[in-house]
């Protein structure tokens, strides 16, 4: 079937450089998420794959076939639009049948495929409803049914869950993931919601200002963000500046700590990231840094505690441990939980460095 290859794709809208030298290969049958803030170019990238926008330069391949000149209606790709774009003059059944009728699929086969698609999306009971009568979640499912009934090789989803309220969104996340596994086709999902990206994806592409900054599994990206941008975008993080001393040793505020990273020249300024849930509160002087508790917020499953260290930096901690505002304590984290980032490092250099030192230190 199909892998999608983007080769040096550039997109300009007038003077604005929307996509910059995008190179990426989407493997078949995986769930990809393109994650980034609005304006980073993620939707444009999706539109190029869907055939709604022609890239200014660069090549797009589906398998070995160059797709540059192929219009949207001739691509084995279907899209679930952000606003669903359901035809308001047609009912649920007619919406789902639209693509098959266009392709002149025989009536028997058409009925069978529609039935199957409606069953897949739990819409069988809503077959003859008007679009106006549907709830947001149902509309979402019709949009999905209308797309998958065409048996595309690739399904594109443009911020498809963002119009739903929180609970429904979480439910739909499960349904989407399950659907993708059942269908076994490639899903490319665009979102600005990092939780959604982490929950759904086999692989996440983090985008910023027209670049793919980092691509990898949710766990890789969460644990080993390439830089401050990715770290901040995915999950919450504490980032402090420091200096690399030698492989396995980093200095923070002039004090040396053991770490598990290496391959960085001694004396290089680095950023050290620690996730809030990896920090443990200890009695004064027993941890790495002495801090004063500034505020405590109860978040349900954990407390979100803000503390100030002696240099005035703020640390965010997620913990179930109890403490009081104004109390002086200290914070501690394992060396495995410190992640060292080198400002300006490229993704491939970063990956190389990680591979080299993985498990050595």
């Amino acid at each position: 079937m199909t892998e999608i290859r983007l080769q040096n794709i550039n997109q300009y809208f007038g003077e604005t450089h929307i996509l910059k030298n995008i190179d990426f290969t989407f493997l078949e049958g995986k769930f990809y998420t393109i994650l980034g803030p609005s304006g980073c170019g993620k939707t444009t990238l999706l539109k190029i794959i869907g055939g709604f926008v022609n890239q200014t330069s660069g090549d797009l391949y589906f398998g070995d076939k160059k797709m540059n000149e192929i219009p949207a209606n001739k691509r084995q790709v279907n899209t679930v639009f952000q606003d669903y774009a359901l035809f308001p003059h047609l009912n649920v059944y007619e919406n789902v049948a639209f693509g098959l009728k266009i392709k002149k699929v025989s009536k028997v086969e058409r009925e069978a495929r529609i039935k199957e698609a409606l069953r897949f999306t739990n819409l069988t009971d809503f077959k003859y409803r008007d679009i106006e009568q549907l709830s947001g979640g149902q509309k979402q499912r019709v949009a999905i049914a209308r797309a998958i009934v065409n048996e595309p090789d690739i399904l594109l989803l443009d911020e498809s869950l963002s119009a739903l309220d929180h609970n429904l969104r979480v439910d739909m996340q499960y349904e989407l993931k399950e659907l993708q596994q059942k269908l076994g086709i490639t899903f490319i999902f665009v979102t600005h919601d990092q939780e959604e990206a982490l929950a759904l994806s086999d692989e996440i592409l983090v985008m910023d200002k027209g670049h793919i900054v980092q691509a990898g599994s949710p766990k890789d990206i969460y644990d080993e963000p390439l830089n401050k941008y990715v770290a901040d975008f995915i999950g919450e993080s504490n980032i402090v500046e420091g200096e690399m001393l030698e492989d396995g040793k980093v200095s923070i505020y002039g004090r040396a700590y053991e770490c598990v990273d290496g391959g960085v020249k001694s004396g290089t300024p680095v950023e050290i990231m620690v996730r809030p849930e990896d920090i443990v509160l200890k009695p004064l002087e027993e941890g790495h840094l002495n801090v004063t508790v500034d505020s405590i917020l109860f978040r349900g499953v954990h407390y979100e505690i803000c503390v100030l260290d002696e240099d005035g930096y703020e640390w965010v901690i997620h913990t179930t441990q109890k403490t009081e505002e104004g109390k002086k304590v200290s914070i501690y984290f394992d060396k495995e939980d410190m992640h060292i980032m080198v400002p300006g490092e490229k993704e491939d250099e970063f990956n190389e460095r990680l591979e080299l030192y993985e498990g050595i230190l």
Partner: protein
Amino acid sequence: MKRVLALPYLLWMVVFVILPVFLMIYYSFNDMSGNLTLQNYAEFLSSNYIKMTLNSFWYAFLITVITLIVSYPLALVISRLKHKTFWLLIIIIPTWINILLKTYAFIGILGINGILNSVLEKFGLMKIQLLFSDFAFITVAVYIFIPFMVLPIFNSINGINKNLIWASYDLGASKWEALTKVIIPLSLEGVKSGIQITFIPALSLFMLSRLVAGNKVVTLGTAIEQQFLTNENWGMGSTVGVFLILFMVFVMLVTRTKKESI
């Protein structure tokens, strides 16, 4: 408080909307000397008036269809332009020129020595009397109604969510299929308004038939004008008027848009 300020409005409604309709109905049962009679209705249902009514409908129908055939593609083309409001304005500007002036222009263009005939002559064709014909009537009417038809159609096409059109391409539709299966069905409301705006006045244009059709085309409007202002038979004029109102209500019901029916 609000009642006092609204009094002139309610007065207007009674005096200028409700009362005139009733007066017209009342007069339709009057003969020329003011006696109650059914004579006018009997006359209207006679063959002459029926023929005239059918005639009037036929011309109104032709005018509406031709105007629609021109206006729909025009609205579609404009909706795809970059500066669409500008081009829409260009189409609308002629409506601000007095309708009589435009009609008068056609007297010059279509006349026996007019520009159209001199063009025909250059191509070695015979001069023909274009003015004072049903051709002139339809041409001028279509000319007048095009902008009025374009406006509602443009608005409804322009209001279609662009993603719906993308969605139809996404599902394999060609441009033609996107037009016939998505854009046209979704702009029917605009078409209906356009038909309303064209068909009802087209039934009642009287000055056009006087000026450019040389009375060859007699519409319901011509009949009313003639009865009221030439024959001074207000009763018969009112009877024709009552039927025109009935036809109008019928057209309104047929072309009623969704919004209105809610």
